[in-house]
């Protein structure tokens, strides 16, 4: 079977020696930590942090304009970096994630390659970061120990993001929260060169130290501001570049933003392997593996949840994903697995169960899975959870901040009523 695929430039072992791999921003904390794992395994990596206005233009120029906004931004950011003059264009490779689901997102890597070709850089290798064996590169392999480290980075990232979000609106010393995040990112980056960091006992110790630091910031302040949840398509949900700095806008409006973690998305992807077997009896081996992995990840997640519940009750803990996934029953089937799929609905319901009754559902304009799991689920959610406020905000290159902010303000004026 399988259609012939146009040849792609492989990232070879030779390239590993002196090529710099460029990584786009999505979750500033997480991706920085995760890309650092690559560094400690001998790759040269540069994590892109610039977010100037030109990114959009480059995206528009080189990618089909009806493609989702995240693709436009990610590709725009990478191309801008290529053209920035900071790198030898013949000594760089680009990295992009690839999920392989039924959503357009599985095609980002191809769109990136097309854009490169169009801009005259067809020779630059593009590495697919995927866990489904979609593409192979002899010079780029994610080994189990690497995965393990990346996993801890994701948990560290989620813990810091979760606690920082709960401190920032209440911090007495301006900027202390962000400084604490930076402090810990630096510590963790520094640590990663030692093998001992792999030990779970060490990681657990770190969890406590991180949590202690944030607990100090919050002190005995009561978290009494209106809470606003942010869910949506993964890129615009997390990336300030994608959502016009939504979190800082919300902070300015005097509310506390609540953003469900990145690990949830990973668990969702793993869980879908189970569902495929359950519904269609396909890929039994994958299902077996997924089941194991699911339990494994859930255990790690629950550890942090329990730690937070026991020692830091003033904070809202991470959600227990097993409960989160069950919440969609009666709303949407867990077979709806393209893009963010049922997770989007689940996260809204999870937020509501935590008393977060105001939710912003972010989506790129025309995002297909969100028609169903986002906009399509608002009515039933509101009907069955009276008093809940949900607003859908579209993001695309032409949308202006004033339109988006107006809609959010409208929701907020309801929230504080």
């Amino acid at each position: 079977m399988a259609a012939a695929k146009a040849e792609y430039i492989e990232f070879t072992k030779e390239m590993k020696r002196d090529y710099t791999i460029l990584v786009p921003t999505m979750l500033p904390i997480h991706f920085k930590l995760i890309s650092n794992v690559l560094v400690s395994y001998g790759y040269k990596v540069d994590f892109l942090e610039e977010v100037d206005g030109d990114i959009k233009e480059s995206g528009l120029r080189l990618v089909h304009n009806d493609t989702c906004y995240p693709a436009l931004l990610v590709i725009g950011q990478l191309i801008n970096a290529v053209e920035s003059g900071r790198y030898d264009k013949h000594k760089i490779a680009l990295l992009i994630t690839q999920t392989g689901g039924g959503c357009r997102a599985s095609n980002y890597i191809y769109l990136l390659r097309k854009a490169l070709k169009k801009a005259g850089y067809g020779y630059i290798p593009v590495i697919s970061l995927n866990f489904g064996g979609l593409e192979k590169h002899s010079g780029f392999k994610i080994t189990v120990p690497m995965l393990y480290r990346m996993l801890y980075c994701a948990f560290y990232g989620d813990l810091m993001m979760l606690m920082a979000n709960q401190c920032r609106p209440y911090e007495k010393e301006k900027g202390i929260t962000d400084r604490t995040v930076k402090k810990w990112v630096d510590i963790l980056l520094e640590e990663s060169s030692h093998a001992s960091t792999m030990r779970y006992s060490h990681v657990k110790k770190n969890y406590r130290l991180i949590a202690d630091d944030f607990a100090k910031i919050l002190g005995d302040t009561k978290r009494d501001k209106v809470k606003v949840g942010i869910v949506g398509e993964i890129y615009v949900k997390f990336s300030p570049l994608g959502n016009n700095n939504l979190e800082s806008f919300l902070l300015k409006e005097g509310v506390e933003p609540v953003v469900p973690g990145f690990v949830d998305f990973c668990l969702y992807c793993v869980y879908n392997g189970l569902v495929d077997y359950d519904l269609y009896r396909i890929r039994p081996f994958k299902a077996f593996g997924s089941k194991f992995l699911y339990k494994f990840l859930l255990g790690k997640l629950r550890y942090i949840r329990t730690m937070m519940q026991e020692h830091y009750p003033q904070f809202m803990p991470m959600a227990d994903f097993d409960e989160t996934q069950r919440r969609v029953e009666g709303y949407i089937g867990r077979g709806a697995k393209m893009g963010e799929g049922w997770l989007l609905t689940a996260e809204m319901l999870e937020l509501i169960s935590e008393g977060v009754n105001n939710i912003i559902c972010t989506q790129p304009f025309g995002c297909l899975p969100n028609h169903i799991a986002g906009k399509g689920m608002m009515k039933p959610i509101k009907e069955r959870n009276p008093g809940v406020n949900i607003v859908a905000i579209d993001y695309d290159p032409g949308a202006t901040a004033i339109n988006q902010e107006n809609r959010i303000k409208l929701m907020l004026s309801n929230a504080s009523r």
Partner: protein
Amino acid sequence: MIIKDNKNRTSGKLLMGIDIGSTTAKIVLIDDGRMVYSRYERHFSQVRQKTLEMIEAIRDMLMGRSFTVAVSGSAGLGMANAASLLFVQEVYATAESVRTLQPDTDAVIELGGEDAKIIFFSGGLDERMNGSCAGGTGAFIDQMATLLNLSNTEMDDLSLTHKQLYPIASRCGVFAKTDIQPLINQGATKADIAASIYQAVVNQTVGGLAQGRRIAGKVMFLGGPLYYCKGLRERFKETLKLSDENAIFPEYGLYAVAIGAALYSADGETLNYELLTDRLRESMKQRDTVSTLPPLFKDKNEYQAFITRHSKNSVKTEYAGAYTGDAYIGIDCGSTTTKLTVITDNCDIIYTYYSSNKGNPVAIVREQLTKIYELFGDSITVRGCAVTGYGEELIQKAFHIDFGLVETMAHYTAAKHFDPEVDFILDIGGQDIKCFKIRNNSIDSIMLNEACSSGCGSFIETFAKSMGYTVEEFAREGLYSKAPVDLGTRCTVFMNSSVKQAQKDGASVRDISAGLSLSVVKNALYKVIRAASPDELGQRIVVQGGTFMNDAVLRCFEKEVGREVVRPNIAGLMGAFGAALYAREHKPACSTILSLQEVKELRHESRSAVCKGCTNNCRLTVNIFNGDEKLISGNQCEKGAGIRLSDDEQLPNLYEYKRKLIESYDASDNSPLPNDTALKKTRQRIGIPMALGMYELYPLWHTLFTSLGFEVVRSGFSTRALYQKGQFSIPSDTVCYPAKLMHGHIETLLEQGVDAIFYPCLTYNINEDKGDNFYNCPVVAYYSELLQGNMDSLHKTKFICPYLNINKEKELARELTLVLQKYFGGITKAAVTRAVKEAIAAYRKHMQLIYAEGERAVRFAREKGKRIMILAGRPYHIDPEICHGIDKLATSLDFVVVSEDSVTADVTPPTLGVLNQWTYHSRLYAAAKYACEHDDTQLVQLVSFGCGVDAVTTDEVRVILENGGKLYTQIKIDEITNLGAVRIRLRSLIGALKERGQ
């Protein structure tokens, strides 16, 4: 007016409310519970200045008093921040005043200049504003009135006398305009069009905004358009079926937001006149950081050089009256304007005309021809004439014009005159952008703007007018801008809000004008042409069209592409000039054009009718000339025009064949009940919605349920009426039209009282081994989930939407048994297993029939030497309401029409640069490959607006075709029923093929 507030916020206080909308500013004063002052004025984007003036005008009422004030409105935020005044969100403000003034209101509909809002009060407070894709309403009505050459009042009055309503796309202004234009050109009455426009606004509000909630009970209507337009009110009342007492049109309709703001201010900071005016004055000095661009010209010299350079590209246009000899007339009857030129044997122009066609092109051409005949008298002999443009057919028929030619050919002919080596032509007109590349002296590829980015030229015009400028003045202002604002490149609706943002930030008219020009240019470059670099366009570029007469646009274009281009002095007349040149080249022996006497005596009447040729019920416009010559337009096939074809003349049309094939299953519904089913006592009726994936899998499910003893009820093909039936429950207004239709199909089935409705969730489609995976798109796969959550009416029945695997018989039987047993007792696994076997076999047979008909069609074409068109879309594109008869249009242009699935069974998939992961789309790629392998085959891709997946496939299909030396043609479809643009496209395709000698 008395404003009593139960919270007692108003007593003994002076409250001021300011509402700054997108076009107007409103102020109210409430003194001790009485509204003592109200005023509204257009602010022409001088928000802060205007507000200050309005407050200074009521100095006497404010002096010596302390008061509170709040600002509201979409353009008020920036001013409120800059002047540190209290700001309140406008919908919130509306809710405040309604709660105070009319507490028993169930819902409020408010239409503003560019916003539409609904607030639901009863049954859970809910407030909604138009999304980023719903077109403006007030601004839209203004624009339409301009199009009809009426004032708003005239249009309103006329609408009340309407006799019939035409369907006009309701999603966004640009779409609607595309529907209205042909109606105007076809001579529909202005009264009917006016009412139809209002109806479109109503449909847009009800369909786009309410999103699943019914608007019922006491409904209040607010905002300018609803305050002024009686016709619009009438449409709302009728559509929502409101009684007089339940439809409230309050006298304070214009001021609800301002009143709400005033009430909101009550607890705020106390100010006095001096303090307030000082703050406003202070705010005028600030200018926020707007994203700006470099100026168009560095200095005067650069501007002079630019003007001198472009003045070289001229044809002589003097002659008038002094010429004797042969002459040729070219007419371009465009969508908004009519253009006419008369040229000599030397191609000099001796007469030109350019004007808005004022909704009646026949009258204009008649007037002009009369004028030409009288002006030149015997000194010229008209040896030939040609007409092009939207109104081509109408004008050709009316005046017996020698030639009708497709617009693209006319433009190319004209451009060649200025630069014989031209290799790229860009034409930006009032409503459309056209561009084509020229290779080997023939048109190589044509790009027309999709419905969503059109309207750019006329957008500048409308915008200039709304700010109180003529287009020329507005353009001139732009040339002097020091810091043009960056307005983005999306459709006009987005630009509107970008302008709003710029206004908020205090940008001047100059900067906005220059910014708009740049947006138009970028739109053309990145949205339509999608160029990565100027080199991609070509070396010798000719730009034309009325919009390029605007020097600011021209300058922006040159700057953006970094290359000097040719703009002829008759840029706006190129179509007409090209037509005249064409007439000169193809000189007929004797021109058939009407004589002066005949022109004068021409009688023209038009009336509307509904075609009874098939179930499509096309709305026809019948033009009658001199009482006996007829021209019928609006028809989607030859039947409407009164032409009957015999069977062997009938060109094969796979779309039609597939529709018939689906209908043929209905006949078998009365088969006797199998004996061994438990359902025999009470035969259950199961409804199948004929939408999305069902178009392909219907034979499978039909067979399955029939075999199990069900009576299968199919919801039939879609119609506009069916769409409207389900419109109110669509939660996402940007989803594709095929998905939106699903709601109407469900309603139709419920009306028929079925016992259950079946539409499964299919993550995986049929595996045809043609790609890397075989998914459905998320919308096709999971639309049931959305229906279940959003259609309350579904609770009345059993809605069966299991997740199924249709690729394995055994597995499918297992899953179906589980599900069906849950809903209907007594179904055995054995029965289901057998039914599944039959069902899969039926599906296979269905596909075999399609392949066979595909083969027959190809054979037919080759025997008779016809061109083959693969009209490539998805299975559901055969729905007549989705493809709008494009298949029939293609056969009427002498194409044999085959579908993407009928010719690709044996095609091995091509090499792709993307992941080939959706079954339907794998067929597209294969079809493109097939087209490349056959000289007589062309591929035309149908793309539903909003289809995210096609953003990936269209580029890839284009690459496959162009690598194979083929032309790529894409047609975007939505609710639009106008085939005019499609016809131009297909005729251009034929023209280009002829030039290539194919």
